[in-house]
């Protein structure tokens, strides 16, 4: 009988290898997995908190899991460390804290490819569950940059051109080195770049700092879903950078 294993963040590769070797089912708890209202999580975790971790708690309230791995090391955040405590008391299954400090670089071909940005993010987040090397992809010449974590609401990604390169923690994620801070803080000063963070996330400080250093950067944060003002801000930034924003749907 295959087990259902929940993961939060990017657990070490050795753990992913062990889970896949057993043929167990991996469930990414960072992503919405249930239809229930996020407000239900307010009984366990504050409303004014990272929407990703609120989603983790909501998923754990509804899913039948056999085990949870939650990364609480430098490749994730202090909020995950504290949320692990909440999950430990809430769940009747083992909640295993990991500290992923993997250094073997897998590369980040998706981050620099010419694929719709939303699709790049889908593949990168799905890629956490794989231990296989990446297929070769052609690098595209970037027109724009997106720095940050995968947003809770992927719809805002549809505004960006396919030639957008991904930076920040998402690049670390694809590289399977989530604690690589040098890679996380890297950006390309030659392309207009949106420095994204989830509202109430500690990485907002780094996003704001790097946006100020970047000659053509803007810091943007977003909570649960991308409202019209967030979308309009990105749209204006792209337009005023000489780029054509993508579809306006999603409001």
């Amino acid at each position, binding site marked *: 009988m295959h087990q259902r294993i929940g993961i939060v963040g990017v657990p070490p590769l050795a753990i992913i290898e062990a889970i896949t070797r057993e043929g167990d089912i991996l469930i990414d708890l960072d992503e919405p997995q249930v239809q229930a209202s996020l407000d239900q999580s307010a009984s366990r975790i504050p409303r004014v908190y990272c929407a990703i971790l609120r989603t983790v708690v909501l998923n754990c309230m509804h899913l039948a899991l056999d085990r949870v791995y939650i990364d609480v090391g430098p490749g994730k955040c202090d909020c995950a460390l504290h949320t692990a405590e909440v999950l430990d008391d809430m769940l009747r299954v083992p909640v295993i804290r990991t500290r992923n400090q993997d250094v073997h670089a897998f590369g980040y071909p998706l981050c620099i490819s010419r694929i719709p940005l939303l699709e790049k993010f889908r593949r990168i987040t799905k890629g956490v569950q794989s231990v296989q090397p990446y297929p070769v992809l052609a690098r595209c010449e970037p027109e724009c940059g997106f720095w940050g974590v995968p947003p809770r609401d992927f719809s805002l990604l549809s505004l960006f051109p396919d030639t957008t390169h991904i930076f920040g923690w998402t690049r670390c994620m694809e590289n399977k080195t989530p604690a690589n801070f040098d890679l996380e803080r890297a950006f390309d000063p030659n392309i*207009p770049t949106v420095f994204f963070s989830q509202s109430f996330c500690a990485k907002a400080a780094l996003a704001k700092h790097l946006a100020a250093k970047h000659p053509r950067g803007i810091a943007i944060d977003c909570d649960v879903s991308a*409202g019209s003002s967030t979308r*309009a801000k990105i749209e204006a930034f792209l337009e*005023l950078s*000489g780029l054509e924003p993508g579809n306006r749907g999603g409001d």
Partner: protein
Amino acid sequence: MLLADFGTSYCKIIETEDGSPARIVATRELDRSFCADLATGHNATRRSRKSINELTALARGGQQLVNRPDFVLLDCGSRDIKFVRFHEGKVVDMGWNAECGASMGFTIELLSAYYQLDYATIPVPATGFSITCGVLGMSHIFDAVISGASETEAVAKFVRGIALNAHRFANEPEELYLSGGLCDNPLFVASFPCRIIPLGRFVLLAGLRATLRGETPFR
């Protein structure tokens, strides 16, 4: 061509071909069937044949009205604030605050109506409340009045706090071009800790005109 800036509280409208001046219509009084050829603002998509982003309209309007390569332009609306910074004739920085800077213009107007105040007669207070948005800032007014301040003093500190917050949001320039209905509020304009050059309420309409001519301040 009928151009419109659909603001939250007021719509600014101009017909480009008959030479008539721009007019201001309260949003709640605008005919439901009104449709512009080109527009900006929160209702622009629904009420026009073609629309452009507000920040884009602001940047294009600023470039039309300010004949300088380097300047900062701040638009204070009923619901949000936004700024663009030009360097060497190109937009190099921008911001749009719709949540934490929310409802500034709207609350300033509401307060004057409720307390029956004339902002032209109120002196600038020495200090302002530390506030980030109109809605949250109103609690400071109530607390100040309970503590013995006059309603006029409390509202003045609120307005000064709003101006200081807007100045910080625009990254504290020494000189600021101001757009929007608050250009007509002497207390608000005088509450900034920098030189203010009011451009009035039709900056975004100027941006729409520039869009018609195909002029862009792209980087």
